[in-house]
């Protein structure tokens, strides 16, 4: 077992544990903290995959900005323990087993896939530098990049209009 393998399995286990905790936690704030664990574990995996810029953006934007927004809203609304309700019989006895079958079928199919197994994420390939990424972003993807600025502007306006007090 080399270092990348150990790192992969540790971070993968942390991410899956965090995702399970998101489901298991009854307080929304515990779910939010578990989700931060998932995001940090994924950021380490991005570093392992040779994408340091994406890892930094993951920490700053996801674990920083978005999760702070979630925690802020949870505290603002004073969200307590969520109430448990009975699920319909169809959801309990058909939906849940089918969901697990789907997960394990997809995982098994990906595991056995020859095409996927043939290509590895070798550490010998140099990491994608921020320079290469920005050249790609500002040449080939310049129009989508500019379009996202309009998207963010609309999102700001939408959030302001929705969250303000009714006159």
């Amino acid at each position, binding site marked *: 077992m080399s270092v990348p393998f150990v790192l992969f399995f540790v971070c993968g286990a942390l991410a899956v544990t965090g995702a399970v905790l998101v489901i298991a936690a009854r307080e929304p704030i515990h779910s939010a903290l578990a989700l931060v664990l998932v995001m940090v574990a994924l950021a380490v995996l991005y570093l392992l995959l040779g994408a340091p810029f994406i890892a930094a953006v*993951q920490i700053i*934007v996801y674990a920083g900005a978005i999760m702070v927004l979630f925690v802020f809203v949870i505290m603002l609304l004073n969200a307590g323990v969520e109430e448990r309700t009975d699920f319909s019989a169809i959801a309990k006895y058909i939906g849940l087993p089918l969901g697990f079958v789907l997960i394990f079928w997809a995982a098994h199919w990906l595991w056995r896939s020859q095409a996927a197994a043939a290509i590895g994420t070798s550490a010998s390939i140099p990491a994608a530098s921020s320079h290469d990424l920005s050249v790609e972003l500002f040449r080939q993807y310049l129009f989508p990049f500019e379009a*996202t600025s309009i998207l963010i502007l609309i999102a700001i306006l939408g959030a302001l209009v929705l969250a303000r007090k009714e006159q």
Partner: protein
Amino acid sequence: MSIIPVSYYLVLSAVLFGLGVIAFVFKRNIITVFMSIELMLNAVNLAFVAFARAHNQLDGLVFVFFVIVVAAAEAAVGLALVIMIAQNRQSLSVERMNHLKF
């Protein structure tokens, strides 16, 4: 040997996405339902980065960048909606939001 097959990452991505779907269906608090959407987006991002690495192309990383930007915009608008719903209904449970149900 330091080559992790890309299938390992894809399996992890599939498991995380499935857990996100389960959380989306089973959680009863509207904020945690929102969080499970973020979980699914993260799972897809992992697959994007793994494929970008495996094919040694940068397009996957650019897509992840855009997904993160859209997720940020979506979280801002969605949480504003959550605040509005909580103020109108005095409840965060999705069970109470059944006014469109026939």
